[in-house]
């Protein structure tokens, strides 16, 4: 009885979680505009979507922003993690780690608003009249900022785990400190760096709140576009767009999970061999 109850409970949870998504996917293939009845399978809304130039530009913008923000955040974040690891004073270490986590803990709406105020101040100081001129840079800075903690969070444990012995060995064998980092440390913390980058990429991809505050009119991202369209009547071409996003996020998740399970089993194998 208990077993059935827990199964039913599990199904219920999944149903609540996924029925809305399934509905969106289903109706994206609807032949008519109706959101109430399914009148036949068709790819009409997808073709409509791909005809819309606006959607294409928004997609391109989103990708450009997500790729560049996650790359910059990865470089800065990895360097920061290494710096935090090398800090001697424990108090400094804890303080800096907490400070870097603020953008993650802070409600997005607060981060967004403070970013907007900051860029407004920058405009008045440098006498820039047109926000669109610095719009992209502002977006890039904002996205990099809120992506940064995720990179540090994923790289720092790796560096801690690796310890000093490998870099000591590299120095001993003739590497300058910089060479030791790139030739020995980086390859060994790579999994952490990559997963940090993937996380940063997805965070930037689906950010709406901060982009809403900071985004200029000439640089619209997909979440902003969808939001602006919902103000009018929602047409199923938005369902089609949502379906594409859901599926790509799903694929990305599967890939990164597969990688981490592989790594996990490889580690377990290694440990098993050692105990033998």
């Amino acid at each position: 009885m208990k077993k059935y109850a827990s199964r039913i409970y599990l199904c219920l949870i999944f149903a609540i979680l996924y029925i809305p998504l399934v509905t969106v996917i289903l109706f994206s293939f609807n032949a008519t505009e109706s959101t109430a009845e399914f009148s036949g399978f068709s790819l009409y809304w997808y073709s409509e979507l791909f005809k819309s130039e606006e959607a294409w530009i928004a997609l391109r913008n989103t990708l450009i922003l997500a790729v560049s923000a996650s790359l910059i955040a990865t470089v800065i974040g990895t360097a920061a993690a290494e710096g935090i690891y090398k800090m001697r004073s424990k108090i400094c270490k804890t303080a800096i780690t907490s400070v870097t986590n603020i953008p993650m803990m802070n409600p997005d709406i607060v981060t967004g608003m403070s970013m907007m105020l900051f860029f407004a101040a920058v405009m008045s100081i440098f006498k820039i009249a047109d926000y669109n001129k610095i719009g992209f840079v502002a977006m890039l800075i904002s996205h990099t900022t809120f992506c940064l903690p995720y990179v540090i969070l994923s790289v720092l444990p790796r560096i801690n785990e690796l310890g000093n012995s490998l870099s000591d060995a590299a120095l001993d064998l003739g590497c300058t400190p910089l060479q030791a980092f790139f030739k020995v440390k980086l390859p060994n913390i790579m999994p952490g760096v990559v997963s940090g980058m993937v996380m940063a990429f997805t965070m930037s991809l689906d950010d709406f709140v901060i982009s809403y505050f900071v985004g200029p009119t000439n640089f619209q991202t997909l979440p902003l576009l969808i939001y602006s369209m919902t103000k009018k009547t929602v047409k199923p071409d938005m369902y089609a767009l949502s379906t594409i996003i859901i599926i790509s996020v799903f694929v990305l998740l599967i890939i990164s999970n597969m990688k981490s399970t592989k790594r996990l089993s490889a580690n377990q194998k290694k440990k098993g061999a050692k105990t033998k």
Partner: protein
Amino acid sequence: MAKLIELKGITKSYDGEVILNSINLYIRDGEFITLLGPSGCGKTTTLRIIGGFETADEGELYFDGTEISDVPPHKRQVNTVFQKYALFPHLNVYENIAFPLRMKKISEEDIKKRVTEMLKMVALVGFENKSVSTLSGGQQQRVAIARALVSHPKVLLLDEPLGALDLKLRKDMQNELKTIQKAIGITFIYVTHDQEEALSMSDTIVVMADGEIQQIGTPTDIYNEPKNAFVADFIGESNIVDGIMLEDKKVRMSGHTFDCLDGGYDKNEPVDVVVRPEDVDVVKPENGMLTGIVSSVTFKGVHYEIIVDIKGFKWMIQSTDYVAPDEKIGLFIEPDAIHVMKKSKYSGKFGDYSSFSDELDTLSDADTAEEF
């Protein structure tokens, strides 16, 4: 043999705790020198200062006559074999060994020649393309040695390199290391807490305790002529008894006056007397210089380990003849088996077997293995 490395007044402390207290030491070219001591005695720190991973608070470090305290590790002509090998997991065996040569931008042809040479020396030919994580502990150890030697350093530093290996493999590697050292003729500075390892491999042993050097000497010197109670106790088993030097070559302990070979002490000076367990002969009570009651006997394979109570002080004796517990026996000690030492701060702390137990011994060994 010229002085290759010299430490002058090296002092180091962490968070106000003194780790090294004014270490003075020189190391000759081509010798196998061992820094020996218990956990926390500062031996690893000394090695790391020579390697360049730590900087001394005070003192000077000379290499071949030049002060090198400020020279970074990658510019020093010393290489290290680390405690846990520190092989690069992202490179295979060949690339691990080739690593220092690549840093020096040596031609691919020469790299191949030298790596192959090294692989031959450590008997790992055929392992070139294996991942280092698939190797056994002994094989990883060999890769670490090959990698440290391939760039022809003048000095090899070894930080408890055999600590992670099992006993049999450790013995084999001891011989192998000694052979390698003789073959290439460079200086080896070896850090260990294992006295047997130190005795069997070294040309010179430096015994350290509490951040200070206790004694420097050849293995036989250290064993036969320990300077104080700490050294006598740390190197092998010893009975350390309070004694009084009546005059040259006469020492009184446990109520009996013994002939000995030592001299040069004040009249009636209190001293520590060391007698090694294997140097005591068990005789009939009436023939003994000392008599005592056997309190325990343990069979050790080659000999019996006998604990004897002599006037409340427990002696350890190693004998091939069995005696029964609670039996009264006599002890006979030859003059050359007695070694007299000046009193030191370690007097009275070591050399009594009243709380002796094998288990305790192995426990403290495990502790020292943890040292970083």
